[in-house]
């Protein structure tokens, strides 16, 4: 039985960690870009960011005051049992959000879209969002928080199969350039791309690809991994860097996730996870132990539905 109080504690702790501690994979990625970057202004931006993360950790203050819109991704082991149930879990996540908003402090960013009512705690209607996935043969739950800021750097487009790789590249470049100018996307970013599914699936997959995969990891499908590398190189060859200055530091990594889609279409989304790529994960074990990490490990083989019932016969069989 996983105690609900431990879930609240874990969620509260990762809220602070995400806001303050830049994930090591992202920091290493930016250091690597700095080594290659030759433009003085672009170099200055990258060095300032590295200083900023150090200042955040030393002072225990948020790395960016736009603390994004905090949200959660919960992966539940198939054997996990929660003593408060899922309702208890959701209460815990909302309470952790409100407490961390006051204590870190985080900016109360969440307001009603029309009245602009602000509860000053980042909690409101449909906020924080909580998304779920499941894992076989596990009795823990993983709680990940992502504080993605950025009103910019994300876009969606319905492409068609005939548009092919050219269409993908062109839309990718469109997003890089339109939000790269003046650095609206706060690049270099982890760029996540969702390909396929329905429109909403493409958006969700792209966001998860940006926010829930570490810099340096590749999609297990070699064809997709190749496209990830190609798009990353393409982004870094535009001649644009941080803040839209001349440079080569645009994409710290590119992650693509796919879903089976309508035979006539190829929906695509692009998401930029900014210079404050904030994510933190806690695993809460059945005995209440908590382990913290920065790689959400969200896209497990099971998540990508590898090797599970994909042909009609097997699916029918499994359903019996």
């Amino acid at each position, binding site marked *: 039985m996983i105690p609900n109080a431990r879930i609240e504690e874990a969620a509260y702790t990762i809220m602070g960690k995400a806001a303050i501690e830049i994930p090591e994979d992202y920091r290493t990625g930016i250091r690597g870009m700095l080594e290659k970057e030759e433009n003085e*202004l672009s170099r200055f931006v990258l060095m300032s960011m590295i200083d900023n993360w150090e200042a955040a950790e030393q002072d225990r203050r948020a*790395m*960016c005051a736009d603390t994004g819109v905090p949200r959660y991704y919960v992966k539940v082991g198939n054997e996990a049992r929660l003593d408060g149930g899922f309702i208890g879990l959701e209460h815990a996540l909302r309470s952790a959000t409100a407490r961390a908003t006051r204590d870190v402090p985080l900016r109360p960013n969440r307001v009603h879209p029309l009245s602009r009512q602000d509860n000053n705690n980042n909690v409101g209607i449909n906020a924080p969002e909580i998304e779920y996935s499941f894992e076989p043969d596990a009795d823990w739950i993983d709680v990940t928080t992502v504080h993605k800021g950025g009103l910019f750097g994300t876009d969606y487009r319905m492409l068609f199969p005939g548009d092919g790789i*050219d269409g993908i590249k062109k839309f990718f470049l469109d997003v890089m350039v339109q939000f790269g100018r003046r650095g609206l996307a706060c690049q270099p970013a982890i760029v996540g791309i969702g390909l396929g599914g329905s429109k909403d699936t493409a958006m969700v997959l792209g966001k998860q690809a940006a926010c829930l995969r570490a810099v340096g990891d590749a999609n297990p499908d070699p064809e997709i991994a190749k496209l990830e590398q190609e798009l990353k190189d393409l982004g870094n060859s535009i001649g*644009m860097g941080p803040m839209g200055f*001349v440079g080569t530091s645009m994409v710290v990594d590119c992650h693509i996730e796919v879903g089976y889609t309508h035979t006539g279409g190829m929906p695509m989304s692009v998401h930029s996870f900014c210079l404050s790529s904030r994510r933190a994960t806690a695993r809460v074990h059945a005995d209440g132990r908590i382990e913290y990490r920065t790689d959400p490990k969200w896209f497990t083989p099971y998540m990508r539905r590898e090797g599970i019932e994909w042909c009609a016969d097997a699916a029918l069989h499994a359903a019996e």
Partner: protein
Amino acid sequence: MTLKSARLRLPVETSDLEPLEIGTVVYLDGIVYTGREGLYKKIDEGVMPPVDLASLGNANFHCSPAASVGDDGTYNLGAVTATASFRFSRFLPKFFEISKAKLILGKGGMSEQDYRDHFVPNGAIYLTTVGYGTGALLGRGIKRVRDVHWLKELGIAQAVWVLEVENFGPFLVESDLRGRSLFEQSNRETLDGIERVYAGLKFPALRRYGETVNRDDEVI
């Protein structure tokens, strides 16, 4: 090439701004006050702030802090980061008139047109934050919250925070007294590369309504 750098004492005189070239790194000492949609819109609607803005100095920061207000009324201020400035463009004439601001601090700059029309005549320049996520560095530069106005009316994020700052930065000079823009200069410098990476890529079958084909355009 190494970047030039400067330290400015607030409030500034226009003559202090004279030597500042675009791309210079700047740090500030003195008083800045924050303002974003809440403040600008109210002014636009003719509702005057509860304090004479010009008495708060002449540096306005498009920002809101990550802050909380304790039960005892004290402020806990963590990080500060700018918000994108372009959307305040239409409020500028009235704002300059009542605030007498000479430094606008923010994110992403405004257009050269705005600089020529509104900044140059007022002897003002624009400083951009860096990154833009340098919230912790900027937070360090804030020594004290001197005052908060319109906290109840506008909420923490939109209120007018009056901040005492020391070695506050880094900022980059985005526009100079002649109205030149570092960002627009960068746009011109990067245009060739953009044309090059697009070369040979065909348009998707389905265009977007009103889709621009001119890569010199910006979306803002």
